């Protein structure tokens, strides 16, 4: 790898892309590395662990890269650790913030930044250290489309200005294909070779676009024959199962996130909930799903869904929700409960009181359908990101809910998991379920034939509608302590 080169590192999950980056950054040293070391890695002619050429590293999760509570201090953090003189630090801080386009006061609280801004802050923190090499590990996987472009453009500006070598790990090729001048594809241990392809982007993608796509890498459409998802004709939508009427919602103790939303979820259809970060999409979805109590207006379940219960889902008991509304959280780990994949799937049916043979049959069926059969005994926390996602969807489906609410189901998923999810969602719709998906993923919207509901940020001028159902007084004390 030559100085100043811009490299996109590709590979299926498990090919060790992140490990290569960590090694380049000099973070894998004999003392705390669990694996074995073979061959040598030289950075600027010296072993990488000596960190002769400074590497700046930006990771995937925006939340866990912010160190300090003020923007200026956070960017300065790396320089301080390198013992840069204070006057020089502040000069570099201002320059780095300028390069990444974060035009904010130095005292601005980092808590108030969006995901895209946090990633640009992390980039500025790396740039301020004047690295010879910039290493990015899926820096845009957790961002909305605007955030992705923000960060990509900031990176391009930075490497153009500083001439630093760039190495990006990312499975969404389209974002970076025009920025890099070389693509390296890593093989899995099963391939028997470490590097499967290496060359300029057009050449590598044209030659092995199809093969890369099969490995789960998002190859731009122009390099592929098959489209991302097979053509599909959604069934005719039925009557609404759940409806939001002038719905206002908030997290317990939080500000009102949505002031007035009207939304219908018809049977046998998909509704996509879109909108910028902070527009309250997740809060709205959780309220529609009956997990949060509305603060204005209300959610009304059709008799076909309520099946003998009252019309307000948030008043249903937790167990009564299982057959009616299933929720898939953005982070699968939030909803894991047991110590094996099979138990995780059996949990819901058991809570419903199904007889054990019926539970086992349901589990077997889901394991097969979602390709998790080989992992039935595995601990859920040990699964890969894609497997965890499929498991979390499967747990919601295990109790056969007629409404399924999904929060960013395709975030950070590779193309193979994505296609599996699309198939699954289509099956659900075909079977008559009403889906609500919070998503930024335009391809998902297209593939499921979803109707889109765009959510604008809350407008304080909109008055809150009165509650459709008055809250029972005995709840008020519990609301005060915020437990539900």
């Amino acid at each position, binding site marked *: 790898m030559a100085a100043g080169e811009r490299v996109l590192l590709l590979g299926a999950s498990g090919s060790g892309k992140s490990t290569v980056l960590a090694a380049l950054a000099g973070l894998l040293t004999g003392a705390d590395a669990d694996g074995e070391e073979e061959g040598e890695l030289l950075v600027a002619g010296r072993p990488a662990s000596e960190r002769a050429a400074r590497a700046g590293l930006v*990771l995937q999760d925006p939340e866990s890269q912010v160190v300090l509570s003020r923007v200026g*201090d956070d960017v300065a953090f790396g320089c301080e650790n390198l013992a840069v003189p204070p006057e020089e630090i502040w000069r570099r801080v201002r320059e780095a913030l300028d390069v990444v386009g974060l035009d904010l006061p130095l005292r601005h609280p980092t808590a108030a930044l969006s995901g895209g801004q946090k990633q640009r802050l992390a980039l500025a923190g790396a740039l301020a250290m004047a690295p010879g090499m910039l290493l990015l590990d899926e820096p845009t996987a957790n961002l909305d489309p605007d955030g992705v472009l923000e960060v990509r453009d900031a990176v391009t500006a930075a490497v153009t200005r500083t001439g630093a070598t760039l190495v990006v790990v990312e499975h969404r090729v389209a974002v970076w294909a025009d920025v890099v001048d070389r693509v390296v594809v890593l093989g899995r241990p099963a391939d028997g070779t470490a590097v499967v392809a290496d060359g300029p982007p057009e050449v590598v993608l044209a030659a092995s676009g199809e093969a890369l796509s099969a490995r789960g890498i998002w190859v731009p459409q122009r390099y592929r024959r098959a489209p991302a998802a097979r053509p599909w004709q959604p069934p005719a939508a039925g009557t609404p199962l759940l409806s939001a009427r002038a719905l206002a919602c908030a997290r317990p103790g939080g500000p009102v996130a949505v002031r007035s939303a009207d939304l219908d979820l018809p049977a046998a259809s998909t509704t996509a909930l879109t909108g910028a970060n902070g527009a309250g999409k997740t809060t709205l979805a959780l309220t529609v799903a009956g997990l949060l109590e509305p603060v204005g207006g209300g959610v009304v379940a059709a008799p076909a869904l309520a099946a003998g219960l009252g019309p307000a889902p948030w008043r249903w008991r937790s167990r009564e929700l*299982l057959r009616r509304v299933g929720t898939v959280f953005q982070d699968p780990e939030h909803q894991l409960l047991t110590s094996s994949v099979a138990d995780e799937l059996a949990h819901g049916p058991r809570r419903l009181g199904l007889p054990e043979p019926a539970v086992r049959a349901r589990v077997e069926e889901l394991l097969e359908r979602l390709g998790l059969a080989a992992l039935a005994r595995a601990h859920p926390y040990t699964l890969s990101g894609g497997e965890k996602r499929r498991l979390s969807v499967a747990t919601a489906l295990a109790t056969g809910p007629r409404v399924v609410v999904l929060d960013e189901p395709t975030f950070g998923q590779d193309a193979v998991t994505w296609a599996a999810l699309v198939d699954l969602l289509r099956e659900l719709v075909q079977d008559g379920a009403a889906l609500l998906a919070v998503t930024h993923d335009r391809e998902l919207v297209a593939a499921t034939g979803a109707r889109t509901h765009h959510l604008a940020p809350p407008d304080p001028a909109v008055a809150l509608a009165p509650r459709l159902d008055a809250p029972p007084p005995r709840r008020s004390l519990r609301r005060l302590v915020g437990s*539900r």
Partner: protein
Amino acid sequence: MSGATGTSDAAEGTTLGGLVGSVRATPLTRANPLALLAGALVIAVALLATVDVVSAATALLLEIPLLPLAGLGPRALAVRMLPVLLASVPAGLVTTVIGRDAGAVLLDLGPLSVTEGSLDLGVATTLRILAVGVPGVLLLVSADPTDLGDALAQRLRLPPRFVLGGLAGLRLAGLLVLEWRTLSLARRARGLGDVRGPLAGTRVAAGQAFALLVLALRRATRLAVAMEARGFGAPGAPRTWARRSTFAARDVGVVAGCALVAAAATGAAVWAGTWSLVVG
């Protein structure tokens, strides 16, 4: 991440007490947090040395005019004072009822009795908790954690790894509140939302706490990697500080002011003849 709430603000706020940007600049909020810490300690030591009404009342009288220096509106200040109030009154009541009896009996309920002596003790206890609590609350709402960290590392020479690790941890701790709420919602979605009974309830709560622990460890590990990648933690490596923690005349003034309050309280009690050393 969508749906930031009041809690996330409290988590990542600009002061120890979790306030974001709503604090007016006052001599106290501009002071070095170390001065606030030292001042609060001086008052606490002076007041905990004795149990009597005069010293606590004097200190409280002198402190109340300082409350506006917190830079908060009366309502926000009241909310933050609430825990101190809630702690002080019951503590005083209990002391009144079961405290050492002396003097005339005012109320007799068998083993529980209120006498002049125990009433005196109860009032003194309530006032004392308030008088020690007020500077504590002022410290919490005025001090910026980053500034306190700078002061601890640069002025008191505490190890930077320890101080900065603590600062980073403080920021993550607030995220835990949000995670816990999300975990509760997820449990409701999975049919565990209305598990009742001490045994089953405890099991569900324990499972949720374990999940929180796993999530916290994951996040902490990722943060540690991000910090290491930015050159943090190399043992013995020299480090500079972008912000200089200064101890100016204003800060000396803050400590001196607190010492004056402590001296006035002790002096008044000695003059009134009520001062009595607790230990000794």
